[in-house]
């Protein structure tokens, strides 16, 4: 009974561990790391095939094994909690550098002509008027689609929240139809099939309607979940004060739903703005089509690269905004759930 009681004379159970720390290991863990590095360098210098295309399976296997070993070496470092953080960072980037170097060495691309082919200022200057026009067309499309889809989506979501069974069937059918329909198919049907019925739409209008209908289905779902996220007690409190259904929606539900809805809504605007590139298939000369047609006209892909850069310049800030809003909403969600 008394044996289990710890006394001053009880020897520490950590004695074994203490002995371990006193022992000097034959090969320290750093030695492994440096040895491995040396082996990799020797491998690269002596065994790796010269630059150019990899013709035989043997050569490919040698490169693949080298990549695998590099990868293993970096994993060895990254998983070692005793290595300093800066070392892990440096080696992770070094790995990326090695992969890039291997691609550069064996891909047979004409890297020397890259500036002339992709970043040719002269060509871009020639293509400039078409590209800016395409850029504005894309922006017009994106904004029109955002406005149309918001209006439609909000109306649908409000109707949906009244929970009328028959109305709901139509709304669910609408939403499912446009979510299931590939956008490009929808655009092509509106632009190329409807004229047979006598419905002739201007390409721009067809694009806005097609993208807007598609996006409105998503927007309505976003608004619906936003409205549903407001607690039931809020509706009861509003009703108990004598507010009617419309006033409850306008004064109590929507203001609270809007805060929840902002991040996914901005995300959805970005998505549908990116989808404007699909309008190039119905003869709208937007940013992608402008870049593509200038590329074939001038026999140089620089305009296309420039279009890409413009897309990124437009959408990277917007996706960033969406993330920022999300963080803000998570901070503010406490207020909503009071």
């Amino acid at each position, binding site marked *: 009974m008394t044996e289990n009681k710890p006394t001053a004379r009880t020897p520490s159970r950590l004695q074994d561990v203490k002995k371990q720390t006193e022992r000097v290991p034959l090969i320290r863990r750093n030695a492994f790391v440096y040895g491995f590095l040396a082996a990799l360098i020797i491998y690269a210098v002596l065994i790796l095939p010269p630059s150019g295309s990899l013709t035989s399976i043997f050569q490919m296997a040698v490169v693949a094994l080298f990549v695998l070993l590099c990868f293993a070496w970096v994993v060895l470092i990254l998983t070692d909690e005793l290595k300093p953080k800066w070392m892990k960072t440096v080696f992770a980037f070094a790995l990326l550098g090695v992969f890039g170097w291997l691609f550069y060495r064996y891909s047979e691309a004409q890297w020397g002509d890259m500036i002339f082919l992709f970043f040719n200022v002269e060509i871009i200057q020639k293509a400039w008027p078409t590209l800016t026009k395409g850029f504005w067309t894309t922006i017009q499309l994106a904004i029109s689609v955002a406005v149309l889809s918001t209006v439609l989506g909000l109306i649908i979501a409000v109707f949906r929240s009244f929970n009328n069974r028959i109305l709901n069937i139509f709304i669910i059918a609408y939403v499912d139809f446009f979510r299931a329909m590939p956008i490009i198919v929808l655009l092509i049907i509106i632009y190329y099939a409807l004229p047979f019925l006598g419905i002739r739409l201007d390409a721009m209008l067809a694009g806005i309607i097609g993208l807007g209908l598609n996006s409105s289905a998503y927007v309505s779902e976003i608004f619906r979940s936003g409205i549903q996220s407001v607690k039931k007690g809020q509706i009861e409190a509003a*009703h108990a*004060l004598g*507010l009617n259904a419309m006033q409850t929606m306008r004064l109590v539900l929507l203001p609270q739903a809007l805060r929840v809805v902002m991040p996914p809504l901005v995300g959805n605007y970005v998505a549908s703005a990116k989808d404007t590139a699909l309008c190039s298939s119905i003869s709208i000369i937007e940013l992608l089509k402008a870049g593509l047609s200038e590329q074939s006209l001038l026999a140089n892909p620089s305009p296309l690269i420039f279009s890409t850069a413009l897309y990124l310049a437009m959408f990277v800030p917007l996706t960033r905004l969406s993330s920022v809003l999300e963080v803000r909403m998570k901070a503010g969600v406490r207020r909503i759930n*009071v």
Partner: protein
Amino acid sequence: MNTFDTKDVMIEVIDLHKYFKDLHVLKGINTKITRSEVVAVMGPSGGGKSTFLRCLNRLEEPSSGHIFVEGVDIMSPYIDINKVRTEIGMVFQSFNLFPHLTALQNIKLAPMNVRKISDEEATDRGYKLLDKVGLREKANVYPEQLSGGQQQRIAIARALAMQPQIMFFDEPTSALDPEMIGEVLEVMENMATEGMTMVVVSHEMGFIREAASRVLFLADGLLVEEGAPEEIFNNPQHNRTKDFLSKIL
């Protein structure tokens, strides 16, 4: 039986039934509430207290029976229930303040949008009510920055801003920390002395003894017993009531 002056009957409930699917929650409630009465509704949980209260302004749709508020049959399909609700203020267990509005905006919202009074008038009324509940300095504060007791007092002020004839309280202190119950009950007691007609679902014995003119004891969907607080507390007639009181006293 009918000793009340009919003019002063604020709410009359006749054979009120409520089903939730197959669950029979209210099994024929009959009662009258007259002007300036403070009626406390007590009973075991699940006995139908809250459902009873919520049926009286049709937050819960009654299954059958009649409810007259100031002589108006609110079960009639022709009435605008929102009009009736403006005459009945309601305070909830979980406060249900609007989190996107400040305390003052919470109070002003319904008078401005339902009663269509001007902004200045609503602000004026709002500050008076904030004085009444002792929270003038919190006018421009959002609900999340207020304590539970403060939130509930704002909720009372919000209900009073519609200048209702009747006030309903659905367990107003049940979600509060003990030290905050007093401040809410004090506001309610003041209202009672001012002659407000009140229906209070609560188990705050002190408040009921002090302010209630009548106690309704609801259990298993039936109005088991009613009477003055002293009568019910000191001399309960039914076993169900005795049993319940022995547990909470």
